[in-house]
């Protein structure tokens, strides 16, 4: 087990290096620089511009800047935002709970709806329900997130006026964040209506973010289940006189879940990518919106380090999934 973990951690090193190089160089490929964008519409004297660029160290050759940045990261210094002047890590972890809350709700929706839908579709293969699930999954998977999000806003916020358009909670409520999760904080605050408001704000972005993982999980569950239902051990389970619920829900599902767990783990990356669009559409104050805003401000340190931390989180989640895999599938052992 320890050997397995160490070998997996060793793979992370080149991945980290790759991500850092890409993040570092791609943002610099964009025209413009942070100083120019900070100065806004006022014209800045070229001397002043060069002076600030020198202060920030952006006039040095790129390899030197990169090595300087890498050295900082290795000593735990992820740099300071050019705009807010605060350490990137501080900003990141202040905003991260919002993204985490949204992503967790999305993945819970995707798993809770996707797995039963996939199982039922497989059990009733070829039925109307199966065709509906398969069709809906294809549509959901193919739908552009920004368009789907806008569509839901038009219907539920615009026409029906059931949900607010943006933000995490109504401006009527204010309380100090305790956990950073609005659902929990609003309950802890004890203010009447705060929780309902938080749920109301969360529901649309969570649905939008859940759509692609839901489609993927439902399809994966269905095909894994179809394969497993034809296995000899499912026939054995039925030959024992077990109820259909136990045969499908225990004997078949337990085996079908093995590939599904990998899929769920991979959806974490999809969630992060989706969060960028979803948070922008719904003005959700999380990492995704922060990154997009930083790109338009050419806030180099935020983008470099933000991407690196997100990549790190995704890699850790995948590592955890691989470890879990060994627990679910007795044929795999990490010894």
């Amino acid at each position: 087990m320890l050997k397995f973990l160490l070998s997996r951690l060793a793979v992370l090193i080149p991945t980290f290096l790759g991500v850092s190089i890409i993040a570092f160089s791609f943002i610099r490929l964009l025209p413009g620089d942070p100083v120019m964008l900070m100065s806004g519409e006022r014209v800045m004297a070229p001397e002043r511009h060069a002076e600030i660029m020198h202060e920030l160290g952006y006039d040095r050759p790129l390899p030197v800047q990169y090595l300087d940045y890498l050295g900082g990261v290795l000593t735990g210094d992820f740099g300071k935002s050019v705009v807010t002047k605060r350490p990137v890590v501080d900003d990141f972890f202040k905003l991260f709970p919002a993204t985490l809350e949204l992503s967790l709700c999305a993945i819970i929706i995707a798993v809770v709806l996707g797995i039963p839908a996939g199982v039922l579709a497989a059990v009733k293969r070829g039925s109307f329900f199966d065709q509906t699930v398969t069709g809906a999954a294809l549509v959901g998977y193919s739908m552009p997130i920004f368009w789907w999000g806008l569509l839901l806003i038009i219907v539920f916020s615009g026409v029906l006026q059931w949900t607010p358009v943006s933000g995490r909670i109504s401006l009527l409520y204010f309380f100090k964040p305790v956990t950073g999760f609005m659902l929990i904080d609003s309950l802890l605050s004890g203010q009447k209506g705060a929780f309902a408001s938080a749920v109301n704000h969360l529901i649309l972005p969570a649905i939008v973010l859940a759509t692609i993982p839901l489609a993927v999980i439902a399809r994966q569950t269905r095909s894994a289940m179809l394969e497993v239902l034809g296995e000899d051990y499912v026939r054995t389970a039925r030959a024992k006189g077990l109820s259909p619920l136990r045969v499908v829900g225990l004997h078949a599902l337990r085996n079908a879940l093995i590939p599904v767990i990998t899929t769920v783990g991979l959806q974490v990356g999809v969630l992060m990518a989706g969060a960028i669009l979803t948070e922008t559409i719904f003005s959700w104050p999380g990492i995704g919106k922060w990154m997009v805003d930083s790109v338009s401000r050419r806030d180099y340190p935020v983008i470099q380090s933000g991407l690196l931390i997100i990549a790190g989180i995704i890699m850790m989640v995948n590592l955890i999934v691989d470890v879990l895999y060994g627990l679910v599938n007795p044929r795999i052992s990490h010894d």
Partner: protein
Amino acid sequence: MPLLDIENLTVEFQTAGGVFRAVDGVSLYCEKGEILSIVGESGSGKSVAMLALMGLLPWTAMVTADRMIFDGRELLGMSPEKKRKIVGREMAMIFQEPMSSLNPCFTVGFQIKEMLRQHTDMNRAQRQERAIELLASVGIPAPKERLSVFPHQLSGGMSQRVMIAMATACQPKLLIADEPSTALDVTIQAQILDLLRSFAHEHGMALILITHDMGVVAEMAERVQVQYAGQKVEEQNVVDLFTHPHHPYTAALLSALPERANARRLPSIPGVVPGQYDRPPGCLFEPRCSFATEICRQGAKRQGSGLGHALCNHPLNGPGDDAGEQKQRNKAGATS
């Protein structure tokens, strides 16, 4: 009254090319404690008939019969809830591929104890004790330790022993063994068959052994039912079947045994079992039969018990008859 009494069982599948009849009017009975063997080539419907009895066919299968009585109870039209109390407890089945018949995600102990949990009201400690006892009874060394082992850690022979332990957990009145030794190597085959026979004798359990191996039949069976293309073509006790086969198909099967061959070339039956699209209109064996005549193209007649219920117009070894006379008569029939 026999333990199992099936009359005129038919199983059909709806396929893209029309209806496929896998089992065609098969009747079968089995006495308490009897070892019955069902023999036939692949595609003769032997497994399908038994899966239909157990209720293990997919829902696309259409099962009809005049009666299907097990231990005095009619299984046809019985509610699934009621049938699940019989299946597994009084009537159990083991399969051809022991390695894939055990669930890879659960320990051997869990799978055996699950059977006890489903059908008995033993408590946890009693189930544990009974599971150890069962593993010991099928000849698995260190049974207590083996309970926590996963199926992929067992060999094929061991897996089949576990399957037998599981199937016999509730002391069923009938055990159906579907080619239980085919996937195993020869020395293990003999051990598994010995185990099944001793179980049947010790517990008075009836055993239906599905096989295509005449050697296994000779060794194990008390009575034999021969199936061909979904039909029962002959039924006799084992000694008579081997000495006086009445159906030409049975005779051909027996003469294909290596022990019986006296020519340099091993005799074989020409042709293959008819499938869905090339079903002959009359006797199904007619295209491959060396005794076939014109009337065989119209249909086959079911003979009486003196001729092993053979489904044949020209049964062999009839009273006062031999193969030579038989052929003479065939010729006469063909010219007239």
